[in-house]
């Protein structure tokens, strides 16, 4: 089959609408009679609802008010478990938990009314840290505050450690904080609902069928009376994977009671404080390595904070667990993983979904292990990279070509890593010497405060306080749902030919900026030998499109795109077999054939349902086997400057090299990597969620710091292609891969620049200062003392600095 569309940077399908401001997002539509809905939320992290008071100064008869009592079906957000209520009715388990809903014609009045509802809570002791959750003195969920546990074992870790072989043991503890997805379009939904017609919602979302299932349960309606339509969505990153079921249900409950359309658009503060974020994590590594640098045993304890309700924590945990031992060959591995409950607002999906957390810990740890055994970071990696035929920790034998060494070579070549690593080491040492010297010597009096020698050797106009570093991370990311997930999803995609000669793709996959519409057009056009402009992508509407599974897990191009390809081939074969089309034809001939076929037979349509590639074996109970159909493989390099006067870290250059099967659309693929790297840089250095009493205190874009155009380096992206036989034209999934590499690469670079044993993310300047220049025991600090870089990595765990309650 010819694939002329693959490798073409076909223009974004809906791009013209986006650059002209004509793309319609949910807040751009306002049907007649519409009300605005707002949410009354819990002021306490945990407790019993004693009373809900409505201040009589508000004319409540002008408002629509909904509480749990108004719910027609089950007061539960259907996802994995049924522990999260749509509206709290007797207890609350997190700040900002929804309790009541208010609607009014005028949005400002609805907001004003919301401020005049007081919820009285009899407090119960909240749990805010992983340690407190595990200590289980206070049980806030289930019987022991644990949503889920996994244990993955390979070989015999205990025996390996006890074996008394000539090994070096390196321990480390690594923590990552929460991260806010910060899509620039906040969550929003528009609903019409009534007992006669059922429920319809339009809005910002990644997964229409998740919402569909949730609403059917909330309203006790059969599937055909619930309809979910995706509108143009201004970013998702996982933050609109499962959360939109909540806001959709709320808008629909108000619409149901009001008998009018209701629109809910979250304010930014509310969106940040009340909706899901990336799971905070703590990873403990204990690694035995032979004296010549081979991994002997890896014992990993991986714990994530799921917040107050289960949401997707088991799956986040699963992915983090499977990625915890990385792309390395090690005979003995154990990963003990837990997702615990705390009284934070529930954490949820965010690009990477557990893998960034465990890979951050692993790749930072690998540099420390290398140092302990006297090898360079890359020499150590090369001795241990998996290759074809090796077995990963979870028992998956690698059956595809893997060349991590080759990726490393290319990344090093493009970034100038080796030369810079040596040069920065020398220059930092010299700069350190000069700083010490200049502190004691006298001024030379030529209008400058420091002797000329203090500036000698400064290259590129670099300030004397700046130290440079370069570091890398080697990693992988499984594409598609884990294990038997894709089989359970049974995703379907449909392609039809219309009477106008146009081809329509019907899939539940959503465009959220990553390029779904364009990729599907290219794939269908490629399969049919026509132009992407001849292909329409149906708006994801559960009344129209099949369930193609959620738009998550880096599966849309690889899994659903393949279904689109197959379905497209299906209608081609139909036309050829029916004699309407020769086996070789022009674009115009195709359109004519399409038209004629539909005129004759009424419908031209083919559907394709997911079947797993043969040979994949997965045991759900033992959690062993082929975890993913394929992996993307990558090496990322970060070059940083650390200003030791302010402890600020800047990324000066970033190189991202990855093998991802086949690049369908170079501009879109590059854009995905660049955007993911920028989010990774944000996560590593800037995006600190400040917690106060279980609520995000810095829930404003002024105070939650994401990178601006002045903060990102040049991000240089390189692709290697090793076609994956089961992806469309060989493509693998790439959406989440770029999230895994930046943080550990940056941390390794900072460690190189400063000698600081950085292990806790984000690495804000305040935290780096505390590491490099810890508080002196004596009260009056000597202001002329300079931070002393510590040369040896410490293997002592550092206490968590995250929950500033």
């Amino acid at each position, binding site marked *: 089959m010819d694939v002329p569309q693959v490798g073409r940077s076909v223009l974004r399908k809906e791009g013209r609408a986006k650059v002209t401001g004509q793309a319609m997002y949910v807040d751009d539509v306002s049907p007649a009679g519409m009300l605005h809905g707002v949410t009354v939320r819990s002021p306490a992290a945990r407790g019993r609802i004693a009373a809900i008071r409505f201040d009589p100064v508000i004319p409540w008869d002008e408002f629509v008010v909904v509480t749990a009592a108004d719910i027609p079906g089950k007061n539960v957000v259907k996802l994995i478990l049924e522990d999260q209520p749509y509206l709290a009715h007797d207890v609350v388990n997190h700040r900002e938990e929804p309790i009541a809903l208010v609607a009014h014609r*005028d*949005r*400002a*009045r609805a*907001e*004003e009314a919301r*401020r005049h509802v007081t919820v009285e809570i009899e407090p119960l002791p909240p749990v805010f840290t992983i340690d407190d959750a595990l200590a289980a003195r206070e049980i806030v969920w289930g019987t022991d505050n644990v949503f889920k546990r996994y244990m993955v074992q390979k070989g015999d870790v205990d025996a390996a450690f006890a074996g008394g072989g000539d090994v070096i043991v390196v321990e480390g503890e690594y923590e990552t904080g929460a991260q806010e997805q910060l899509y620039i379009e906040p969550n929003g939904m528009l609903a019409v609902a009534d007992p006669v017609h059922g429920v319809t919602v339009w809005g910002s979302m990644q997964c229409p069928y998740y919402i569909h299932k949730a609403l059917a349960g909330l309203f006790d309606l059969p599937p055909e009376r619930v309809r979910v339509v995706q509108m143009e969505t201004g970013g998702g990153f996982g933050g609109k994977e499962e959360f939109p079921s909540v806001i959709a249900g709320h808008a629909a409950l108000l619409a149901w009671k009001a008998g009018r359309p209701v629109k809910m658009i979250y*304010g930014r*503060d509310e969106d940040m404080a009340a909706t899901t974020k990336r799971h905070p994590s703590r990873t403990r590594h204990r690694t035995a390595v032979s004296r010549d640098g081979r991994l002997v045993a890896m014992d990993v304890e991986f714990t994530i904070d799921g917040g107050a309700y289960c949401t997707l924590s088991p799956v986040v945990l699963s992915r983090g667990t499977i990625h915890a031992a990385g792309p390395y060959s090690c005979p003995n591995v154990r990963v003990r993983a837990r997702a615990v409950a705390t009284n934070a607002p529930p954490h949820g999906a965010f690009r990477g979904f557990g893998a960034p957390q465990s890979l951050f810990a692993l790749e930072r740890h690998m540099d420390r292990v290398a140092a302990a055994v006297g090898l360079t970071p890359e020499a150590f990696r090369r001795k241990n990279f998996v290759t074809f035929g090796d077995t990963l920790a979870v028992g998956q034998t690698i059956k595809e070509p893997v060349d991590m060494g080759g990726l490393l070579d290319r990344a090093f070549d493009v970034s100038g890593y080796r030369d810079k690593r040596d040069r920065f080491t020398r220059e930092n040492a010299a700069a350190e010497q000069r700083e010490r010297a*200049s*502190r*004691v*010597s*006298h*001024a*030379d*009096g030529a*209008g*400058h*405060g*420091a002797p000329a020698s*203090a500036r000698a050797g400064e290259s*590129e*106009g*670099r*300030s*004397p*306080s*700046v130290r*440079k570093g370069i570091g890398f991370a080697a990693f992988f990311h499984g594409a598609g749902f884990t294990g038997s997930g894709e089989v359970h999803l049974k995703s379907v995609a449909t392609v039809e030919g219309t009477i106008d000669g146009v081809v329509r793709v019907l899939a539940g996959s959503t465009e959220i900026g990553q390029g779904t519409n364009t990729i599907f057009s290219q794939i269908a056009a490629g399969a049919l030998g026509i132009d992407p402009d001849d292909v329409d992508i149906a708006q994801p509407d559960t009344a129209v499109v099949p369930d193609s599974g959620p738009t998550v897990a880096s599966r849309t191009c690889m899994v659903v795109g393949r279904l689109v390809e197959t379905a497209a081939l299906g209608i081609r074969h139909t036309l050829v077999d029916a004699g309407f089309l020769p086996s070789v034809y022009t674009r115009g001939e195709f359109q004519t054939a399409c038209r004629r076929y539909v005129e004759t037979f009424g419908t031209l349509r083919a559907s394709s349902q997911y079947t797993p590639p043969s040979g994949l074996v997965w045991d759900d109970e033992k959690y062993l086997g082929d975890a993913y159909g394929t992996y993307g493989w990558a090496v990322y390099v970060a070059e940083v*400057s650390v*200003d030791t*006067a*302010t*402890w*600020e870290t*800047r990324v*000066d250059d970033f190189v991202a090299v990855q093998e991802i099967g086949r690049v369908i659309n170079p501009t879109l693929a590059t854009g995905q990597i660049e955007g993911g790297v920028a989010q990774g840089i944000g996560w590593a250095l*800037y995006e600190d969620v*400040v917690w106060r009493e279980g609520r995000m*205190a*810095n829930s404003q874009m*002024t*105070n939650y*710091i994401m*990178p*601006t*155009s*002045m*903060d990102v*380096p040049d991000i240089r992206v390189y692709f290697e292609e090793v076609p994956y036989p089961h992806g469309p034209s060989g493509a693998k999934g790439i959406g989440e891969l770029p999230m895994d590499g930046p943080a550990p690469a940056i941390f390794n670079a900072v460690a190189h620049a400063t000698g600081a044993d950085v292990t806790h993310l984000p690495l*804000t*300047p*305040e935290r780096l*200062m505390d590491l490099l*220049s810890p*508080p002196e025991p004596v009260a009056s*600090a000597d*202001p*002329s003392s300079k931070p002393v870089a510590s040369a040896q990595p410490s293997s002592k765990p550092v206490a968590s600095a995250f929950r500033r309650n």
Partner: protein
Amino acid sequence: MTPVLDGYQLVTPASLSEALADLAAHPGARPFAGGTDLMVVLEAGHLSPGRYVSLAKCAELRGIERTGDGGLSIGALTTYTEIRQSAAIADGFAMLQAAAAETGGVATQNRGTIGGNIANASPAADTPPALLAYDAELELVSSSGARRVPYAAFHRGYKQMDLVPGELIARIHLPARTAIPPEGGNHGDRVEEPLAPASVPVVSAFRRNAWRDYYRKVGPRRAQAISKVCLAGSIRMEGAGVADVRIAIGAVAPTVVRATAAEQALRGRALDADAIAAAERALVEAIAPIDDIRSTARYRSRVAVNLLREFLRS
């Protein structure tokens, strides 16, 4: 999302004298300049209802003029963009341009005003340290007349100013004696920040003859950032000795601080390690940084000292 606006009035008098009369006639009325501070507060639901008097038509509050003594008179309604583009400001008061370039992004700079920045009295504001280091003087007007106040005496405490009800900041005067033209003369009409290459922190430093000035803001990112520490300094050397020095620092006390004790520790001395250490100690005594949502007291204190050292050693 704005609150219900019933309780708010925004009137736009046709001239300065009308605006002053309006403020005098309505005790409690507040001036409204560019809106970049007040609208944020309004949208957060924290702006007190009442009467707001737009200064949009007060022509006397605009423009940048040379004064008789060779200094500058900057209208309170001058925007950050106008400051950045002013050849007159470039020719002598480059720290103020550096400060204007650090405030928000282009959109904020196009509307935000220097008078608003002063009157909003945030301890972390970007222009005050530069204004203090230039010994600025404020011209205040009301319906009963005008008066001048040294900027150094204007901020009395957290959000407390020497500004009586009905009074407006009209003009900001920068004296000729504190001007430091950049090397190579003035920049002409187009001003671009001399941004350093990526590996160098953004420090604005200019020099003429033996004068140098220095402006550095440390924030959580390179743009659109509220300051954690902001230091502005000017120093004139005679041989190995400090002939004169001015040091101002923001975001480390309830108001912007002129570090006079640190200046005293340096003036007339050789700029050696002991002098620098003495200045640093005096600076630490003069500031009172806090832990807040953006940073910690300890970080601010350490960085303040390091910026001073960087300034004095550059």
